[in-house]
């Protein structure tokens, strides 16, 4: 597969190829695209679940669905959005961008990367299979103990939930190891940690949080599995246990998970704002250390989710204080983002709209978060719609807007096509309007006493107009999301071709063609700046707006100048992931599928371990004639 020395290099071929080439790919860019595409599909699934919830609540005594179906809907909506949309959409960007941004040709463990994807993919399917046996999980995405016990919840729904979460957790741990090593150990020469792009920094913190937080929920889920399958009494008060143990284990995972979901957006915004303000990120080291501090403090505040369980005044005070402390590094970041925009030569493009929207909406969610930090106030707001408003401002306003900003920003690099600007801005405004129309009224509903997770409410409680407004807002929001998707499809079909560097970016991913060649870098760059491309284009100045580009061509040559060998495709990661899922899901059926799954897993792992990474027939790129 030698690159032909032609004048115009067409690199779009990195996505062409048979289905089998996708199933066996170990290329981080293709795996990233698969994560992204799957997450965007599940976004529709989770969105439809939310729409049914809003239809049910549009008017008092709603009769769209019954109580049982409603419980399943909000459980699946939360679980889907957290594990099947936000995390994998962030993972899509980690996959595609971390190697490109640090100047590497792939991740540290390409086959482990494929294994992570397929394990997550099969785990996600297993979760949704629950719908087909008509027993979707119904104990909330937090799965509080007792609601999940065999005694009170004898169906298969919780089993689907536990097993799929466990399987997806393995995928998260594997990718956490992989990306930690990639970011730390595969940086281009000269890229010190403080020169590492902000997105990679936030991604690195996310990986460490995943590695340290997921084991807690893994253990919590193991206890739940033992309680359900082997009649142990981990969460049974009558045997001396306590359901609060689950809450501790869940939130020791769950609160860092909140930062796992928001830090990627912080990283994305920290890349987009400088690019479109035409100046470096204001106080970049503060943003980095604030991110580290947020990650660190995030492990010491889990019990602020549990003030109502009665932990006592000492614990409540400590967890209140810790939670309020997190406002400081978060505030520092917001200050830095505003400082970046301040005095910048702002270029009003769609990615900037979403990025600024993210900052604005996240501030709203952050402020209500500080309110919950106070234990006495939280006692009033707990399990009310006020919390629903808060978490959606953080997850939708913060995480989704940030991730969509990233989609808009890097779409040209991933696909080689530009998105429509008009449609992009329209989709932003419709989503922005819809999001506020949906979730802002929930603050009032919560303060007026409307509880979460109730499937209907009586007339005359004063909740009618806010609920109706939220439902109308949900449909406006849906329209905005649809416009966004239409923009994506239109771009793929007939979008303007993207140049290597459409936004005049500062980081390494803009130094090669769009989409990048299979080997990423024809030459591994040497990095002398936190903004290597601006240094290349403008010379050593901080204020690029007053300088003209010294060199308009991207620094990466079109052809390899050295022999480049890439890892061979392998189907064993896929087979191993399938075996793992069969073994896990099989526990609901019987011993035979479990044994079969374990056998498949063991065989696949051994083949994988003894199969060289690069085998005859692997992609090899020779230098074009005359460039040696």
């Amino acid at each position: 597969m030698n690159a032909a020395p032609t004048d115009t290099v067409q690199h779009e071929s990195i996505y062409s190829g048979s289905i089998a080439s996708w199933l066996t790919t170990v290329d981080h860019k293709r795996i990233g695209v698969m994560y992204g595409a799957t997450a965007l599909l599940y976004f529709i699934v989770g969105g439809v679940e939310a729409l049914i919830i809003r239809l049910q609540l549009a008017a008092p005594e709603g009769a769209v669905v019954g109580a049982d179906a409603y419980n399943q809907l909000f459980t699946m909506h939360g679980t889907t959005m957290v594990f099947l949309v936000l995390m994998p959409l962030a993972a899509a960007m980690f996959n595609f961008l971390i190697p490109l941004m640090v100047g590497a040709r792939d991740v540290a463990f390409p086959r482990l990367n494929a294994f992570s994807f397929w394990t997550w993919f099969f785990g996600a399917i297993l979760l949704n299979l629950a719908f087909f046996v008509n027993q979707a999980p119904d104990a909330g995405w937090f799965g509080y103990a007792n609601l999940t016990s065999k005694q009170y919840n004898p169906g298969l729904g919780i089993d689907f939930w536990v097993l799929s979460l466990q399987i997806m957790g393995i995928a998260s741990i594997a990718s956490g190891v992989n990306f930690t090593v990639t970011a730390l150990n595969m940086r281009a020469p000269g890229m010190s940690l403080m020169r590492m792009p902000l997105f990679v920094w936030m991604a690195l913190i996310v990986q460490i949080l995943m590695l340290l937080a997921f084991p807690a929920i893994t253990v919590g889920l193991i206890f739940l599995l033992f309680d359900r399958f082997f009649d142990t009494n981990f969460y049974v008060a009558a045997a001396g246990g306590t359901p609060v143990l689950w809450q501790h284990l869940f939130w020791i995972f769950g609160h860092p998970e909140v930062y796992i979901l928001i830090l990627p957006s912080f990283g994305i915004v920290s890349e987009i704002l400088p690019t479109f303000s035409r100046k470096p990120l204001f106080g970049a080291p503060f943003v980095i250390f604030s991110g580290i501090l947020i990650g660190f403090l995030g492990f010491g505040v889990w019990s602020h989710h549990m003030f109502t369980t009665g932990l006592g005044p000492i614990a409540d005070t400590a967890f209140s204080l810790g939670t309020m402390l997190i406002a400081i590094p978060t505030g520092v970041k917001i200050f830095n983002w505003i400082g970046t925009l301040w005095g910048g030569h702002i270029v009003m493009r769609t990615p900037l709209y979403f990025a600024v929207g993210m900052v604005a909406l996240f501030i709203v969610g952050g402020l209500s978060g500080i309110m919950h930090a106070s234990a006495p106030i939280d006692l009033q707001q707990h399990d009310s719609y006020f919390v629903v408003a808060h978490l959606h401002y953080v997850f939708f306003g913060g995480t989704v807007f940030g991730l969509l900003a990233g989609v808009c920003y890097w779409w040209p690099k991933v696909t080689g096509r530009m998105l429509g600007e008009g449609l992009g801005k329209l989709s932003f405004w419709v989503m922005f309007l819809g999001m506020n129309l949906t979730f802002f009224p929930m603050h009032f509903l919560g303060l007026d006493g409307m509880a979460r997770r109730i499937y209907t409410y009586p007339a005359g409680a004063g909740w009618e107009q806010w609920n109706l407004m939220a439902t109308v807002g949900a449909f406006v929001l849906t329209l905005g999301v649809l416009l966004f998707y239409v923009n994506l499809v239109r771009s793929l079909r007939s979008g303007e071709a993207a140049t290597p560097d459409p936004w005049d970016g500062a980081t390494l991913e803009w130094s090669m063609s769009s989409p990048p060649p299979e080997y990423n870098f024809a030459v591994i760059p040497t990095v002398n700046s936190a903004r290597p491309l601006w240094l290349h284009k403008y010379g050593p100045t901080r204020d690029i707006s007053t300088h003209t580009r010294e060199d308009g061509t991207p620094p990466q040559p079109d052809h390899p100048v050295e022999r480049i060998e890439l890892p061979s495709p392998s189907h064993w990661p896929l087979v191993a992931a399938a075996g793992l899922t069969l073994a896990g899901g099989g526990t609901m059926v019987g011993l035979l599928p479990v044994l079969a799954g374990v056998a498949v897993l063991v065989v696949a792992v051994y083949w994988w371990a003894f199969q060289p990474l690069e085998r005859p027939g692997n992609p090899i790129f020779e230098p074009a004639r005359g460039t040696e």
Partner: protein
Amino acid sequence: MSTHATTFGVPHRKMAMWVFIGSECMFFGSLIATYLSYKGKSVVGPTPAEILNIPLTSVSTFVLLMSSLAMVLALDAVQRDDTRQAKIWIGGVIVLGGIFLAGQVYEFSHFYHEGLTLQQNLFGSTFFVLTGFHGAHVTVGVIWMATLLVMAFRGRLGPERSLDVEVAGLYWHFVDVVWIVIFTVVYLIQ
């Protein structure tokens, strides 16, 4: 790819194992924390004081610690390209790990006959899940070592493969260290 220089001069796989061990610390940390928080909460017996056999477990603890010594000698032998010693010491790790596992099987079945089952009380549940998951880790380690032993007998474990042994060794030592914590928390501090 693997031939490229790494940023920290540490091979990717070695760094990956350290990172994974960090994650495993939280896994066993959660199990141990649960054991501690449920200590003395069982509403029926048997209690730890009634059933735990400290002398027997001290012996198997000693055996497991000695396996770490064998592991160190095995790595040294592989790095020196001393195939004979490598086989002996990798075999030693397997035998010592196997003795530890046999001790655990004996202990578990003995407890079962004494009336301490997984479902009997919270002590049984937390004890069996904690030590059981540790035993599962030892089992994985023994299988990994057996794989290395087969490679050694096929002449495929020269010094160029010493990283394979080193990474397996990191895992093995970690599983040993965790046992020291478990032995202290569960057996010695009652």
